[in-house]
């Protein structure tokens, strides 16, 4: 592997990736547990290793607005946020995606007030699933690094032109140090060429941007946006392919399956908690239990086909998520279930495990219990808080 091995936190890995992606404009606002990303970036701008305009904005709404403005003149842009900050820029998130500005954002997944809490759950990003952003969820710092670089390539792809958000679990990923391979700048430059777009203010050929479209036309823009997001699935796979060839690390597309081949019971989850499931799967497999893990890497575009294919043989599926849509169930569960309903064939057991809210620990023992629950035949409450 070329490049350099470094012992970095998830946030530092993200900052390192951003440096290599060379965004021309960065605007962000501090919030725990995102802050160290923008601190590192400030240092890089200071020490000259990153030639970006770095805007000290007064809020997240302005952070993303500034990125939209910069993207609207054709600049590559980056921002980062979390939780309250993400919600404070919610209007701009829809704005950026509707305007097809391929901004890349790092989101440090964190619980949403009230009650206040700075720890990692995923209600922040999942509650904005409909905002038109590509949503990726990393499991470890290396994947966060790689996803970040790929996110620029995918978002800026002419068939996609859609903003992308890379999610890291607060603290569990953002503040945990581990080994990360950081490639050579020249390799990243080759992988990720300069951003060019026709969707920008052009001194030679002036345009109107961000206009009004009435009832006759509006839906067409929305439909195109949907199609572009759908197209991003293929673009993500191609980007991973190219990435693998150049950097030697390959990724499996929108979902990753772990020992799912002949699995009867599968836990579906996303983000870093997959790392807690993995050794439990190994342990149970070693005692002959047919269990597996399916990790959703992208929530948008939603990998319904991949999911169904991977889970075709499973009789019991448990969706484990750090999120709850009050008055129904976990949002990931809802999405997964729809994929099943659309095929007409759901697994016999379909359970929802809600955990990790506000950073509540999810232990290997918890996971073992979940697999046990998936083995019990019927009569279970669908939504269980663990």
């Amino acid at each position, binding site marked *: 592997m070329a490049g350099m091995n470094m012992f970095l936190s998830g946030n530092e890995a993200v900052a390192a990736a951003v440096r290599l992606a060379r965004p021309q404009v960065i605007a962000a606002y501090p919030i725990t547990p995102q802050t160290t990303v923008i601190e590192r970036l400030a240092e890089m701008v200071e020490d000259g290793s990153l030639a970006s305009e770095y805007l000290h904005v007064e809020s997240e709404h302005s952070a993303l607005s500034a990125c*939209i403005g910069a993207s609207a003149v054709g600049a590559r842009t980056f921002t980062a946020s979390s939780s309250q900050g993400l919600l404070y820029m919610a209007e701009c998130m829809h704005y950026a995606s509707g305007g097809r500005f391929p901004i890349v954002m790092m989101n440090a997944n964190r619980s949403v007030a009230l009650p206040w809490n700075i720890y990692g759950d995923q209600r922040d990003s999942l509650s904005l699933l409909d905002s038109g952003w590509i949503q990726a969820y990393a499991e470890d710092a290396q994947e966060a690094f790689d996803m970040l670089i790929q996110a620029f390539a995918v978002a800026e792809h002419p068939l996609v032109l859609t903003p992308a958000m890379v999610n890291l679990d607060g603290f569990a990923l953002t503040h945990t140090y581990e080994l990360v391979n950081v490639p050579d700048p020249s390799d990243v430059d080759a992988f990720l060429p300069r951003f060019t777009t026709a969707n920008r203010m052009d001194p030679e050929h002036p345009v109107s941007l961000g206009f009004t479209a009435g009832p006759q036309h509006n839906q067409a823009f929305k439909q195109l946006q949907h199609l572009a997001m759908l197209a991003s699935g293929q673009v993500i796979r191609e980007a991973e392919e190219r990435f693998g060839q150049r950097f030697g690390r390959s990724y499996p597309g929108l979902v990753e399956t772990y020992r799912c081949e002949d699995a009867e019971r599968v836990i579906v989850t996303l983000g870093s908690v997959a790392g807690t499931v993995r050794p439990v799967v190994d342990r149970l497999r070693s005692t002959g239990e047919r269990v597996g893990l399916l990790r959703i890497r992208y929530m948008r575009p939603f990998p319904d086909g991949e999911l169904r294919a991977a889970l075709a043989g499973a009789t019991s599926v448990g969706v484990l998520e750090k999120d709850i849509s009050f008055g129904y169930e976990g949002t990931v569960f809802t999405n997964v279930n729809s994929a099943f309903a659309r095929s007409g064939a759901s697994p016999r057991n379909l359970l929802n495990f809600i955990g990790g809210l506000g950073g509540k620990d999810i232990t290997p023992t918890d996971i073992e219990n979940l697999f046990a629950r998936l083995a019990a035949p019927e009569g279970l409450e669908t939504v269980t808080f663990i």
Partner: protein
Amino acid sequence: MENRKERKITARNLDDREFFYGHKGCPGCGGSLAVRLALKVLGEKSFAVLPAGCMSAIGFVFPQMAFSCNAMISTFAGTASMLAGVAAGARALGLEGIHAVGFAGDGGTADIGLQALSGAIDRHDRIIYICYDNEAYMNTGVQKSSLTPTGARTTTSPVGNRLRGAVTPKKQMFEIVAAHGIDYAATASVGHPLDYLRKVEHASRVEGTSYIHVFAPCPVGWGHDSAETIEVAKAAVDCGLLYLAEYTGGGFILNHDPGEFSSIRDYLLGQGRFRHLGEEEIEAIVAQRDSRWQRIRREWRT
């Protein structure tokens, strides 16, 4: 070629080209005149940003695009920050001679857009922020903003036995941006177009943030004839409710002292929004004007 540094703008040398044309504004709209004139000064390299509000609503209805320069609608709260992004992006990409200019209404400036504006001033972003002040939320049908003057009737500051229109005084945006230590700020009126053009021209040369507050009557919201827009805009200056001034290098400059004021009463009662005002209420407004002018004449340079 003229020396841009010294150009004094008149109707003779002003650009013939129109950059805001074919919009859907009401007849006699002061705001659209303010936008039109400013763009004639700033020219084809303007990158204009307009938040939700009348000017964006009337200027960008697909496929009818009334701006001939680059232009974009921003979120209602995001004018200044989107402008900052435009300026930063242009700088990063090496685009030269660009004017990042914003046109926001009073509501979009003094209410929901104030924070982003304050942030931009604080960073000394090289942007020109023009607030066209029609003294209410017009695009949504004349609701009170913090720049609605005391006594004005709007749909959310109704007139009846208990309330007599807006009860709070008009927020002092010019003083507020000046208190930020902004690089350049000015007030203006579409009734004094040459003064306004000069200020836009000046702003275009400022290395930092400029703010121009231009008074722009709205015949629909104010209740005057569409032909009277310029007169009303002049009368506001003549009667002393509006002052033409600049802030630069840490000090205020009064550009024009009317000396004897014309009648505030006439100014007010010429507009539907003020027609309910009684003598006492008018007197209070007069008194307020007088005390403000006392301070201005005492403290500001001329």
